């Protein structure tokens, strides 16, 4: 006996009720449960749909789908980090490395020659702080808007568009910037220090460019690669 379309929809609802928000994972679990129910029916055709479903759900353990969802998040987080690293590496190869060198020396010269280098550093920090606040606000807005529509949710899409600004890593970065500002007088006396700080700032700028510009602009490709069903659903 095969499941009806209605019963499949019921399974989708069941996964949502058990805290599986993401469509790709829902689809996989729905197919799994459907297979399990169909094969159970071959042996015990008298059992009802709900009885078999509950029996199969129990096999996932006391925490249900929670563990599967968490591990999926971890796996995709890792994939995202790998994407960042891949882009980052290209800045250490010709031709992009030229940009890295030129920018580092430009920032170095500004710090070295300008009497306002201290203010320059502070301005960067303030502007960046504002930028992150804006991104955070924007991501909240997207999340809220999405909640009100019935649009399907994709975990990787959420990681790309929303989680960046709320990442705790940014607090660490501000901490480093504050330290540099506090001890600027000491650091700016030494050329090696100025050079290192310039290099770090440029690297940091590149990282942000990758996070907020390059990866989001290629999001469609990455999503289609990760989720073959993404294409089917968005035709």
């Amino acid at each position, binding site marked *: 006996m095969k499941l009806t379309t209605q019963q499949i929809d019921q399974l989708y609802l069941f996964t949502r009720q058990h805290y599986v928000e993401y469509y790709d994972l829902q689809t996989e679990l729905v*197919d799994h449960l459907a297979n*399990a129910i169909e094969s159970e029916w071959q042996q015990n055709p008298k059992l009802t749909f709900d009885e078999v479903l509950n029996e199969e759900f129990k096999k996932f353990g006391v925490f249900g789908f929670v563990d*599967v969802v968490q*591990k*999926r998040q971890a*796996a995709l987080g*890792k994939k995202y980090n790998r994407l960042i690293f891949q882009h980052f590496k290209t800045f250490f190869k010709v031709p992009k490395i030229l940009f890295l060198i030129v920018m580092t020396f430009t920032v170095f010269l500004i710090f070295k020659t300008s009497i306002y280098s201290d203010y320059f550093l502070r301005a960067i920090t303030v502007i960046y702080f504002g930028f992150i606040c804006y991104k955070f606000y924007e991501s909240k807005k997207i999340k809220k808007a999405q909640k009100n529509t019935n649009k399907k949710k994709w975990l990787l899409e959420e990681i790309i568009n929303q989680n960046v600004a709320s990442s705790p890593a940014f607090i660490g970065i501000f901490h480093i910037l504050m330290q540099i500002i506090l001890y600027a007088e000491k650091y700016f006396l030494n050329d090696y220090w100025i050079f290192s700080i310039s290099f770090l700032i440029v690297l940091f700028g590149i990282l942000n460019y990758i996070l907020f510009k390059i990866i989001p602009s290629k999001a469609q490709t990455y999503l289609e690669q990760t989720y073959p069903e993404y294409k089917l659903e968005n035709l």
Partner: protein
Amino acid sequence: MKNSQLYKGSLNTIIMKLLEENGKMYGYEITQKVKLITQGELNITEGALYPALHKLEAEGLLDVEIEKVDNRMRKYYKLTETGHKETVNRLSELEDFIRNMQSLVNPKPSLEF
């Protein structure tokens, strides 16, 4: 899974080996195949299988495909090129492990004292 602590470390290798033999497979199919081969002795739990599949996919060892079957979508997994190479490594590692375990559990009588 039966005596899960002992089998846990080999789950990824089991999955990769099955995919190497069968081309593409979906989650439920893998659990059933393992049950069939081991005559019901080894039962991969759902809670362990999917995280393992997703991890292998994120590592670039597996690729996914979607097919519409009956009235639902089915996600198939298959080995990537790197996945094929890695399967060979992991299998030889597992065989070494089995051999070493065997000689530890059933030591051959030695001539030296």
